[in-house]
């Protein structure tokens, strides 16, 4: 996809005046800003409402209702949620799951994308189907047989207490990698298709090996897409709770999402406390995003690359 190709597209429509006119867009800009500001605020309302709720004591909202002016605002619910839910422990579990899973998923997906886009093999279409269609499967479709499989696969004692893949952090990493690699392969191959083949062919002429082409030529070009996918993957894996329900039986190995579940009682639920807990569990992904926002958005070049 090149600029010229796009320019020729613009020639087609009769009414298009590509470059014309002065900057009289000022009023339009203001309208746009007002629109965006209002929309953005509207988008934030649910979270802001949760924050407001979380800062108020349960007894006060019970007597005055949730829609009332506060007489007390404090962080007590956050302190209680932190202490009652065992959050630091679960957070560490999730780090142990998410970090290796994200790295492995990106590595393996880039391998497949590299093969299917850079080498013309008969099975490319089949491979892409396997990965892309695999990405469509709902988690529920595979969970029962997967559980049986995890009971059958043995692991050395360093990785598993019971000698099985079941109830291990390793097992969770594996299924995250397998399950997410479909989407990543799809996106990365979409992206890699746009890398000009000339680069690779020149390397081949110079006698580069497949591994060298991958690691020295292709991989550096993938950085933006990989950065963006890493952010998305971190968010998804951090927030997933489904696999652990069936594949983990030890409460101490549960991921962060179960810290939140620990807070909502069976017979008594303090919404204010749960709100505080919910917001606390959201903090890590928000931090990651705001720290990496610049790289994330500028790196997100999922579509065609300029030639």
């Amino acid at each position, binding site marked *: 996809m090149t600029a010229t190709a796009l320019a020729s597209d613009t020639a087609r429509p009769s009414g298009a005046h590509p470059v014309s006119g002065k900057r009289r867009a000022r009023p339009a800009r203001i309208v746009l800003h007002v629109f965006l500001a209002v929309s953005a605020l509207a988008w934030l309302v649910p979270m802001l409402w949760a924050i407001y709720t979380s800062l108020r004591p349960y*007894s006060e909202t019970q007597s005055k209702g949730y829609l009332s002016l506060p007489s007390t605002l404090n962080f007590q619910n956050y302190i209680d949620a932190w202490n009652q839910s065992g959050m630091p422990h679960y957070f560490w579990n999730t780090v142990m799951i998410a970090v290796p899973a994200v790295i492995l998923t990106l590595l393996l997906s880039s391998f497949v994308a590299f093969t299917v886009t850079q080498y013309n093999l008969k099975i490319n279409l089949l491979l892409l189907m396997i990965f892309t269609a695999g990405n469509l499967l709902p988690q529920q479709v595979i969970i029962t047989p997967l559980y049986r499989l995890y009971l059958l696969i043995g692991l050395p004692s360093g990785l598993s207490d019971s000698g099985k893949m079941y109830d291990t952090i390793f097992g969770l990493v594996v299924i995250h990698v397998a399950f997410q690699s479909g989407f990543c392969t799809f996106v990365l191959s979409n992206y890699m298709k746009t890398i000009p083949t000339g680069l690779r062919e020149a390397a081949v002429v110079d006698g580069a090996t497949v591994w060298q082409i991958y690691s020295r030529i292709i991989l550096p070009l993938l950085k933006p897409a990989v950065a963006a996918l890493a952010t998305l993957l971190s968010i998804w894996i951090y927030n997933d709770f489904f696999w652990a329900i069936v594949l983990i*039986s030890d409460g101490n190995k549960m991921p962060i999402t179960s810290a939140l579940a620990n807070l909502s009682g*069976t*017979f008594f639920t303090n919404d204010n406390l749960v709100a505080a807990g919910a917001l606390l569990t959201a903090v890590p992904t928000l931090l990651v995003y705001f720290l990496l926002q610049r790289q994330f958005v500028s790196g997100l070049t999922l579509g065609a690359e300029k030639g």
Partner: protein
Amino acid sequence: MSPQSPRAFQGPSVDRRIMLKGLLGAAGVAALPTLAACSSSSSKSSSSSTGGAASGTVSLGSNASDAVPKKAFQAVYDAFQAKNPSIKVQVNTKDHDTFQEQINSYLQATPDDVFTWFAGYRMQFFAAKGLSNKINDVWDTIGNNFPQSVHDLSKGQDGNYYFVPIYYYPWAVFYRKSVFAAHNYTVPTDWNGFISLCEKMKADGLNPIAFADADKWPAMGTFDQLNMRINGYQFHMDLMHGKAAWTDAKVKAVFDHWTQILPYHQPGYIGRKWQDAAQSLLQKKSGMYLLGTFVAQQFTNPDDLADLDFFAFPAIDPQWGQDSIEAPVDGFMLSKNPKNRAAAAKLLEFIGSADGEGAYLKVDNSYDALVTGYDTSGYNAIQKKSAQLFASAQHVSQFMDRDANPAFTSTVMQPQLQAYLQNPGSIGSILSGIEQQKQSIYNS
């Protein structure tokens, strides 16, 4: 039809291999005495492991993730360990919902030695499936602590014991004494009295019956009460066990009575959480609320709690009167291949004693003990009244989702009861739909 297993699972031999592996694993990590206990558990008859000296670690899977029950259960384990210094209880707590959602996969894989569970068909199901170990030896020791009704609740369908109870909580109609006093209401004992009380409350601007079914189980509670009052305990259990037909006129009669009192229910119940219905009782906007005694946990102010009282659901058919109550019992079971059976049995024996139940109730006063002759002097008013209600009942049911096939209650009854609540007029077709699906589930 002959059983055919998909190739992926390689037939039944897998099970044996897993079991073998489990045994080997146990042998690998555990010391010699444990190995002896282990082999005794796998033999057909559970020989008396209780006499010998039990020691080592007992693992225990718990669904008590809420702060208060968690503390109360820990008090039980602490009291046990103080009595048996050579045994350590290692607790694996998961949040309540996750525990329930994963119970099947958990019990088949690498369960803890002992796990928390519920009495009723729900317990018998796992016993029948071989996912739990019989504990007749434990009951040899604790049998005298309990009345016959509790013995029956703790047995599997094969007549062996599989369950040790720790507490129960009855369902009843809750009200505020001050509200009844202010309007001169009296506690109704029969259907007509109940209806006219609802009428009076409505005239006084109250929601006669607080109600909420967003959680999907409260409607089952109403059904159970009505069915036991109209058709008696035995028919109710037959229906729960899939033996009676949902298209029976007797079932229709239950819904007819329900439809009669439905206009007195607090409107908007489909999307309401039970906690919010409880709040309406607390705020004196509703007059009565049919629920378990755990409703008291919403009454966080001691004055409000002192004002809370309850009565047994009124009689409908004099043949049955008020002879049955619904009182779910929670307790413990032994997993299929416990690593340390001797110590686990010791723990279960302790739980099934006045000391064990007392250790719990000292921390959490939401429930009642099941042990005969338990010292009730420490009970609050609700607990005392619960004990009277329990003692007066001839039959004790558990709850629809504990008495019936769980696949049936969660995939059929919950949505169908809500369909009824949304559209009471279509009860005929709803009941035939239930019966069709019941046959598909119970006969498969």
